[in-house]
Structures are given as C-alpha cells and as structure tokens.
C-alpha cells in the first residue's frame, strides 16, 4: 500500500469491520504506529482485548505467516510485521491479564546453549502469546539447567527449543536426554525448531514435534494441549 493511500485513511472513521481489515493490511505492511492507533480505537469502542488480539492481530499475522510460507513475503517483511504486532501486543498484554482472557497452556522457550539467534524463537513466542499461551522466554544461549529450572518453577506444559546452527542443534538432545534421565520427559510437550532442523532430526532426538515455522508451532501446541485435556478428562 502506498504512503499516499495510507495518508488518505482516517482510521477512527472506519467501521469495525473496515478497521479490522485495515489492521490486517497494516500488519502486512509492518506499520507499527497505525497498529497501535487501531488497537486503541477498537478498545475505545468497547472491544474486549482478547477479541482485538485474535480478530485483528493474530488473524493478520496468520496471513503474513501464510504468505511467508508460500514465498510471497520474506524475512525482512515478516520482521516488520512482527514489530507492528509487538506494538499492539504491548498495549493488550496487561489488559488481557486483567480481563481473564483464556489460557491455553504454558510454554517455556529459549535458544539453546552456544547459540545467540533469536528471531525465529521470538516470532514463535509472540504467536504463542497471541494464541492464548502464557510464554516464559528464556532468551538465548541456555544451558540445560535453565530449561529444567524454568519448566519446574513455572509448572509448564510445553518446552520449546530453538537453534539456528548445525553446531548447536545437537544440544537439544542433551536437554531431552536430561529430561529422560530425570524421569520427567513425559511431563512436557517438547517442540523444536530452527532453520537447519527437520522432522527427521526432531524424531531422532526424541522431541514430540519439529515445527517448521511459528504458525505450525502454534497449531502443533494447540493440538497437543487439546489431546492432553482430553486424556485428563477421559
């Protein structure tokens, strides 16, 4: 969308439906200021924070994710979109906690020891939050102890590990093997991701699933949580 076209649009004059679609466009174009303004407009119109999150932000980012997967958008554009979503999330996050938005599950996520790459991990964390998960992000360069401490302390459902380097991705197995040794492997759903990984690697190290991108991670996590709840209710 051109800047001229954007200048012509007065966000506050759009209907709810038009504004939601406009937000999808603005997310796609990475327009953080406009997203923040629109979030505030919808909240001002009485929208529940969870509704703004799901119908405007998550739905918009889902389009971004699909076009990334289809090779229409590339990493820089996805990062700009993520930056815009982050702006909206910063407004919504305290409100979501206060209004008792549904919690799907709790995830501990981090990049493995020896690896400082966090772009993919940050996208997953953000999309998981958008999908209603509580996320504890451990950041980069995490030794096995950090993962284990956080999982226990937070009573987490899901462990997410990320690596960008072929030299660091084997560390995921160290973490999973430690969970096995301690007899707590089955207490957690273990999801792994990162550019050099694949499904075969995920299986080989004993992860529950390899997730090719943030959208897949969200869907996989939701699926596992649903199965977990079904098993508990059976």
């Amino acid at each position: 969308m051109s800047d001229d076209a954007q200048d012509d649009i007065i966000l506050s004059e759009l209907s709810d439906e038009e504004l939601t679609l406009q937000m999808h466009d603005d997310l796609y174009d990475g327009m953080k200021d406009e997203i923040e303004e629109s979030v505030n407009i919808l909240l001002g119109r009485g929208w529940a924070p969870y509704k703004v999150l799901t119908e405007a932000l998550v739905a918009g980012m889902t389009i971004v994710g699909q076009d990334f997967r289809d090779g229409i958008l590339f990493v820089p554009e996805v990062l700009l979109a993520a930056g815009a979503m982050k702006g909206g999330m910063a407004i919504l996050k305290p409100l979501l906690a206060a209004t008792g938005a549904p919690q799907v599950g709790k995830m501990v996520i981090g990049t493995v020891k020896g690896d400082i790459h966090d772009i993919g991990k940050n996208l997953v964390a953000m999309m998981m939050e958008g999908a209603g998960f509580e996320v504890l992000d451990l950041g980069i360069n995490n030794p096995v102890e950090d993962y284990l401490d956080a999982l226990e302390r937070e009573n987490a459902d899901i462990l997410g590990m990320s690596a960008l380097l072929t030299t660091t991705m084997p560390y995921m197995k160290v973490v999973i093997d430690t969970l096995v040794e301690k007899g707590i492997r089955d207490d957690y759903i273990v999801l792994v991701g990162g550019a050099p990984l694949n499904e075969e690697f995920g299986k080989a190290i004993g992860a529950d699933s390899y997730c090719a991108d943030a959208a897949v991670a969200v869907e996989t996590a939701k699926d596992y949580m649903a199965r977990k709840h079904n098993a508990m209710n059976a």
Partner: protein
Amino acid sequence: MTLPPNTDQVLVIACGALAHEITTLINLNNWHHISLTCLPAIWHNHPEKIANGVEELAIKHGNQYKNIFIAYADCGTGGALSKTCERLGLSMVQGPHCYSFFEGHDTFAAHGEDEIGAFYLTDFLARQFEAFVVKPLGLDRHPQLRNMYFGNYEKLVFLAQTNDAKLDEKARAAAMQLGLKFERRFTGYGDLATELAALR
C-alpha cells in the same frame, strides 16, 4: 555446460563463494590435475539447496573424472550434504563451515564460547557484503531491522584469506554498519588448501 571427458582429472564441485580461492590455489600450486565447477554462491543463504545441487552435478559429471571432491563443509545443510556424499561415495571438506576450515578446524573450535557472539566474514563475504548480507536481510530498505538481526552479536571477525587493504576497509565498514566491534584475523586458505593438496 558439459565438460569434456577427462579421466586423469579430479573434479572439484565447490561453493561459488570459494571459486576465487580454489582457482588461486590451483594456479599457485600448479595443480593441473584439478578441474573446478561451482554451484551458485548465493546458496550460502539457502543451504537447503546444496545437497541436491551437488548430487545433480556429481551425477552429471560422474563418469568423466577419475574422482570428484566436494568443496563444501556441512554449510548449514544439517548433515544432508554428508549423507548425499556418503551415498554417492564422494569425499567432502570436513567441519561445519568455511569459517572453520579457513581458520583451521582445531583453532576455530578452540574459540568455543568466547566467540558465540561473533559474526564472520571471509574475503568473499567482505567483497560481496551488500549482495549476501545487506540486501537479503533487507537492511538496505529497512535499516531499523539491524538490531533484530545483530543485537545479540558482539563483534564482526574478518577471517582474511589474503592481505588486501581494500578488503580490510570493506570488512571494517561492514562492522560499522552492523554496529559491531571489528577484528581481523589472517587465516590464509587453512584446511581448504590441505584438503585440496591431498587430491589425486
């Protein structure tokens, strides 16, 4: 292009980012028994293409050469390239990537945790910094993304294969553009030269 049958020759299938260095080594050492063909250097950014690309070239030229050597390390293929080479009975450069084999695997590995915040350039990448780093990451169009990509890095280490003041300046400018400290380390051709010298 189909190469003429040359059964006395060893074919090196290399990353295009090594073409200049391998050609220099061949000329310097009079390795007349080595022929070189390259895959696109930009696959440095798309390692998922490397294993299939290597296999296609190896099959295409397989019966025309005495031996084929793959001048790639793992290079982000996550073991896919070594599996392909094993299946085809081909040798390849050992180690994780060109940064490691240029510096020497033992030396590179010894840096360990001290260098997890290092972003590396070789002569090729210093020369092609715009085309291989700036543009693919969108930093030319969206410089505000710099810290999202490089915020966790501490320094840019220029692993120099040659002594070239102009390349030093390019690498230094790249470090400045990325907001990183600059360090230059002369490596020469490292383990790449050793591996090629052993080809018969």
